[in-house]
């Protein structure tokens, strides 16, 4: 599995959604991605990529696309 697939898998599992809707997905677009869903998704992401995100990065993690940018700061190329 490449990094993109891993990244997609976390979103699909965290929010129980299909891969097709991910590209345009933003925080609070769906009821699953509220603040509680957010923290649970972040936790899964950290486990998948073996990283610890900083507070500012967690707070700014506002969309599927934005997250790709954030992860690049932790040397994860998607």
């Amino acid at each position: 599995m490449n990094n993109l697939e891993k990244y997609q898998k976390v979103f699909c599992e965290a929010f129980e959604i299909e891969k097709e809707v991910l590209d345009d997905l933003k925080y609070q677009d769906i009821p699953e991605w509220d603040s509680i869903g957010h923290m649970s998704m972040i936790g899964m992401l950290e486990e998948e990529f073996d990283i610890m995100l900083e507070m500012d990065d967690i707070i700014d993690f506002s969309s599927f696309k934005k997250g790709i940018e954030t992860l690049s700061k932790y040397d994860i190329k998607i």
Partner: protein
Amino acid sequence: MIIKEIEKFKDKKDIALIEDSKIIYYKDLIKSFSENDEKIIERSIVFIIAINNIDSIIFYLKCLKQGAIVLLLNHSISFSNLRKLIQEFNPSMIFSIKEFKDLNTKTICFPKYIIYLFKNHASNLNSNITLLLTTSGSTGDPKLVMVSNRNLYINTESISNYLSISSKDRHITTLPFNYTYGLSCINTHLFRGASIVLNNDSIISPKFIKRINEFSPTTFAGVPYTYETFCRFGLEKLPFSSIQKMTQAGGKLNEKFIVQINKFCSKYKKEFFIMYGQTEATARMSYLPPKMLPKKIGSIGVAIPGGNFKIINKKNYDSVNNFEVGELVYEGENVTLGYAINANDLKKTHMNKKVLHTGDLAYIDDDGYFFITGRINRFAKINGLRVSLDSIENKISKFYKNAVISDDKYIYIFVEENTEKDQLEDLLFLKDFLKKETEINPISFKLKWIKKLPRKDSGKLNYIKLEQFK
């Protein structure tokens, strides 16, 4: 009446509410809630679909002032659940921060809210009742707790005392207005002439952090999730230099986090209050004094001023010895008047019950501190919200044979398998159904198929046996 207490601040030049760039002083707040332009009718029911903003709070206070009976609802309520409540409780008016297009009734639009008026409404209701609170708020169950004027006053006063809230305090809201705990934060701070920074953004949003930096609040409240998140961020990294008091209720916080918060608070001279309550007790029943926190990790503390706890043996209702587990029973004037399932219940006279069987299992230690060990009732606490498992089971039973259990993190729904049907279709249907019918994040539901639901000899569902299928 808490309104009378708030009116005492009419000559004060202090700030009452801050909604970003908008500031309301006490004298203006009191002037605003004393006007009745909307013609709120006393002893009738008014629904308030609110958020933490100036308009909602003023309207809420107006209703208290006019002697209307207020039902606070979350803005995410579905139209079908709202309609059910309208049918059962016949309100005279609905204040809503959002539009319900399908509500066919007289409407008055204001810049930031809408008033719906109903002609045939329940009237001349029991003047002793001031608030209706949802019990299992999240499932849309039309079973409401009736709160009297006295209940509200007594509990608000007691909480303000043990938290030593003063006019110097500044609270920032982190919980919904309609949530018992969120409402009690608003009530207690206004009761003492403190100021409130109105915030509806989640604790993980940049706007919340910005408001803390800009308005320097001294206090906030949180459910376990709030503190788990703050600990995850690292308490030292958060802009909490102005914060003096933090309170926690809405379920049991993991002891690992209590230890971390305690360490942080003793280092920076802040106070952390662990509290326990139920809507049936207006809001609060116990608190752990911060200086006792290091010695009593995991305890819900002692009964609030004016209240009393005892632990009874379910079999013979006797009190038990120290460290012996039994049902936690609370006694105090904040115990509410009981439940209402429709407007007729509000026409009756209700006795102040004073005694509440909490449904929680607990023990007392030798120093008189209480510890909760489990629950008798079929309720779960999901992200601070109390959820009736039976209510979810009943909803689903319209379509499927099912059983519902929970570990307070997830709600497990076991559906008896029907091989003739397409399971995926059922799954999607159920998920969609739960999304519409409840206010719980859908990721908290775990749907599972089971060949045959385990039952006891009596034919009743065997929930303990179900645990192994989680």
